[in-house]
């Protein structure tokens, strides 16, 4: 479903990677590994369409993601270094806005349930700036429960999470892959899968 051909990206005067190619089918988890500065984040941002590659093409269901634009972004969930939640808004409000922007119509009940499942019962209607780092991250990760996007691109999703949350996230990713989704992530954490296959990609040398 996701095909990458002859990808080349530069940052400033430095060439991060060149002639990179892979194809991911439904039900695949891809680990992207590499040293700091090897271009992991750039690769993930390129896959999202945030970064325009210097060479090469990325296709989603056979069509270029630049041509698909909004149709591709509807199928995509990206989780970056920042949580992407507003500190002044409550967890509920944050998730409701996110869902509206993704074009989903969610009931308030669904959001309450998601927050409960991620372990934030009792914190739902506090402004998120009053939560701890880990709790903020949990609010952001609640999007994984609510989303219907088949392609997840997660940049270091396990940092700042405690053991329970790590386990929950692992099971979320495993369920997603088992249900025929694709997940691309950079992490040192192994994710045990119930079904589906794991690909490895090493960047840099």
């Amino acid at each position, binding site marked *: 479903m996701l095909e990458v051909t002859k990808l080349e990206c530069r940052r400033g005067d430095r060439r991060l990677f060149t002639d990179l190619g892979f194809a991911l089918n439904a039900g695949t988890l891809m680990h992207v590994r590499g040293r700091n500065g090897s271009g992991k984040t750039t690769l993930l941002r390129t896959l*999202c369409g945030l970064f325009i590659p210097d060479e090469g093409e990325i296709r989603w269901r056979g069509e270029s993601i630049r041509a698909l634009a909004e149709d591709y972004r509807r199928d995509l969930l990206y989780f970056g270094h920042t949580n*992407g939640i507003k500190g002044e808004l409550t967890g509920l409000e944050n998730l409701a806005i996110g869902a509206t922007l993704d074009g989903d119509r969610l009931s308030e009940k669904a959001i309450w349930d998601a927050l409960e499942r991620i372990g934030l019962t009792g914190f739902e209607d506090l402004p998120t700036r009053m939560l701890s780092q880990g709790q903020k991250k949990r609010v952001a990760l609640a999007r994984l429960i609510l989303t219907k996007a088949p392609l997840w691109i997660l940049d270091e999703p396990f940092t700042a999470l405690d053991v329970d949350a790590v386990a929950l996230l692992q099971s979320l990713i495993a369920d997603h892959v088992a249900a025929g989704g694709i997940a691309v992530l950079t992490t040192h954490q192994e994710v045990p899968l119930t079904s589906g296959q794991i690909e490895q990609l090493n960047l840099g040398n």
Partner: protein
Amino acid sequence: MLRVFWCILSRDLTLAMRRRTDVLTTLFFFVIVVSLFPLGVGTESKALQIIGPGVVWVAALLASMLALERLFAADYEDGTLEQMLLTAQPLSLLVLAKVTAHWILTGLPLVLIAPLVGMQFQLTDNAIIIMMLALLVGTPILSLIGAIGAALTLGLRGGGILLSLLILPLYIPILVYGSGAVEVSRIALADTQPYFALLGAFLLVALIFAPVASSAALKISLE
């Protein structure tokens, strides 16, 4: 479409209501700058009436400039802007909603306080009404054009000063016709019509093109 527009608009208004000082700062900046001029130029009413429209407009440009720096900055820092770029919505629609919210918070208050400022400069009632109308049409253009600059200078050191360097020259047409309308209203009220026709045309053109340019700029800045 409308649902998404309303979602962003109400989000930004809610955010501003939970941190009210930002809005008031802009408003007081405007009032203070305008109030300083009579102290510097002298309080003779003839002179005040002549410089009044220009001073109010220059102060409005500066105030809107000052507020623009914050337009995308907060969303940029916490990553919500990045998420907006990845939603299934056209980015220019989201930008338009953000600019609208920004104008309601910083432009509209200037329009509403204009009578007070006009009295400081001893403008006639007609001139004050014309000034309010001109600000009502003109300040959204300032926000729209300024959004392009705000998107380009996102996250840069000294972004605020750079922003004014980039954007103030582009504000010249609004300044010329905005203050021109008020000046001409002292002589003949009917003559203000072409000024409003021009400002209205600028507003329409800016409404169509500025969100597109701003979203292109945002994509560049967030690469």
